[in-house]
């Protein structure tokens, strides 16, 4: 089987469209972006492994040629029989997807690192603490040490700034 980096096989793009479909303000996941991300992290084998499994599950037609209900049935079988390979693939796709600036923007995760201006945290209402304060101390005061036990002190500690 040729590499997903080289083939014109549409399995990957159709698969990503099914797993991470377009949403308000978010386009479908870019296949090239995922392939590059996988290569950067030395995980191309995880893309190829799932592609191979899916191809093996599609006996009459290619995955990309199936209609949506048929693809859903194939994916359900794949998840049942090859859970780890499916999870590895999807977690890799999520890593690429959730770090995409457009996706982060759509979920309100921008501003964020590395430009946090505007990423403000509300102070919160400190008056809520009055009732806690009014209940008084909750720590225990230990009994004094026996007189026979001397406590170590350093009578002339050096000054500090």
């Amino acid at each position: 089987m040729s590499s997903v980096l080289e083939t014109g096989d549409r399995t990957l793009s159709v698969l990503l469209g099914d797993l991470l479909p377009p949403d308000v303000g978010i386009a479908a996941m870019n296949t090239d972006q995922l392939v590059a991300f996988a290569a950067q992290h030395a995980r191309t084998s995880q893309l190829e492994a799932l592609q191979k499994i899916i191809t093996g599950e599609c006996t009459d037609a290619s995955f990309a040629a199936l209609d949506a209900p048929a693809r859903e049935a194939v994916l359900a079988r794949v998840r049942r029989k090859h859970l780890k390979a499916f999870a590895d693939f999807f977690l890799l796709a999520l890593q690429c997807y959730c770090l995409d600036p457009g996706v982060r923007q759509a979920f309100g995760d921008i501003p964020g690192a590395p430009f946090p201006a505007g990423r403000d945290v509300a102070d919160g209402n400190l008056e809520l603490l009055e009732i806690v304060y009014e209940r008084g101390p909750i720590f225990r005061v230990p009994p004094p040490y026996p007189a026979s036990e001397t406590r170590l002190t350093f009578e002339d500690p050096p000054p500090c700034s």
Partner: protein
Amino acid sequence: MAKAEPVDILIVGAGATGAAVAWRLGQAGLDVLCLEQGDYMDPAHYPSTRPDGELASQQEFHVSPNVRRREADYPINDSDSPIAIANFNAVGGSTILFSGHFPRFHPSDFRVRSLDGVADDWPIDYQQLAPYFALNDRMMGVSGLGGDPAYPPIDGLLPPVPMGRLGECLGRGFNRLGWHWWPAYAAIATRPHRGRPPCINLGPCNTGCAQGAKASTDVSYWPEARQSGVRLQTRARVSRITLDAQGKASGVLYFDADGNEWQQPARLVVLACNGVGTPRLLLNSACPTFPDGLANRSGLVGRNLMLHPLGYVEGLFDDALDSQLGPQGCSIYSHQFYETDTSRGFVRGYTMQLLRGPGLLETATTGFLRREIPPGTGFHAALRERFGHLAGMGIIVEDLPDPDNRVTLDAELTDSNGIPAPKIHYTLSENSRHMLAHGLERGKEVMRAAGARRTAAFGPVRHTGWHLMGTTRMGNDPARAVVDARGRCHDIDNLYIVDSSVFVTSGGVNPVSTMQAIALYIADGIIARKRSAP
């Protein structure tokens, strides 16, 4: 083997306690050299400066040295422990990755035997440490709010880290139950402090603070320590401590970055390598005089390892809590269940530490793995329902000392210099299990009281072994302790230990504030000794 110029005081380790001791000794004008196996970190490369920062926390900034495998790291065999060891090796040590949550031990934590009939009392107490807590707070730049009924008065704090909508929401939940809560103590500057800029919510803190607001010791203690003349040598991995003919510490052997071995003579040696690294070094320094490990006539080097089993509670809220914003570990906390109440079925207690919610990637991946966020058409709606709507809570359980929980040397595993690696033997006690179960249930209760529509809880969480304590315990009796009340080894009087290895008990709070206060206190003992007999 090359021989370096002798020094008066040699510190091994440049992390939380090594930095504090170096600064204090340097201020007193003493001749100090610190050897650190890691390097200086470049904040410009921290994950918080990158859009893919969340991913880096699972790779080169992972909390486990076994996953991270940076050049400075050494492997740790923790396969015999439900809790994996977390650390970081660099100038600043594990404070590079710590969340900055900075509570002190309670006064009762030093008198466990007297108050609760378990473990042992410490030979030092809260009152003795009080000036050192205050001094350390000034150096680290600790924020918080005075008036906390869980503690004796604490003054001089910077304004608290904003609790956010999340903290306010949970605070209302605590109030509905009549339970204690308070804004977190945080080693995070909320105003410019000693040359450090304030927090700007750049990232979650625990992958390194590129802003320099979080008080990792590379930006808090070390700049001032070096200004006072302390020398810091990086990429220097100590393999063993050497003895002279009189049985006193005479220095160390170490490997430099190129793998060359050096002999570093010193008149006094201070260990600051944490609760795993310090016993590892002592055990690796076995010699004819100490065949079972240096300073180990008591047989207690490596024993009584305490790790703070950590439980995790999560609540999902309909309201947007903006929980992804703010310092990850510092919002509010509760000590409602900190002091002993035997009607609960266990002794001692725990902290409830509110955590900010996960980032977008972690929300998506954990949601998928728990089958709460389905791939396909329901994906985006399910992710929107959770991102910024999740509250997390850590349950930090006090671990009592048990001699069978210990650090030994692995028979096969070594670091890149061929030095035997540590092996962890650890089991949760029944008391810890009961306490953890209690904390998880109370955590869910407060989440529900705050309005969570769904809760989840589990523990102990595996990659949370940050708090490494007890493996060279402090005590007045040489048969039952490795170091005395001054931090000096009973067996070798010019060998000191200043890290959390010396803890007699673990308390139920993050230990950095207390370990640094103890380190400063021990440093003053060294200074007094040097002044009386230079």
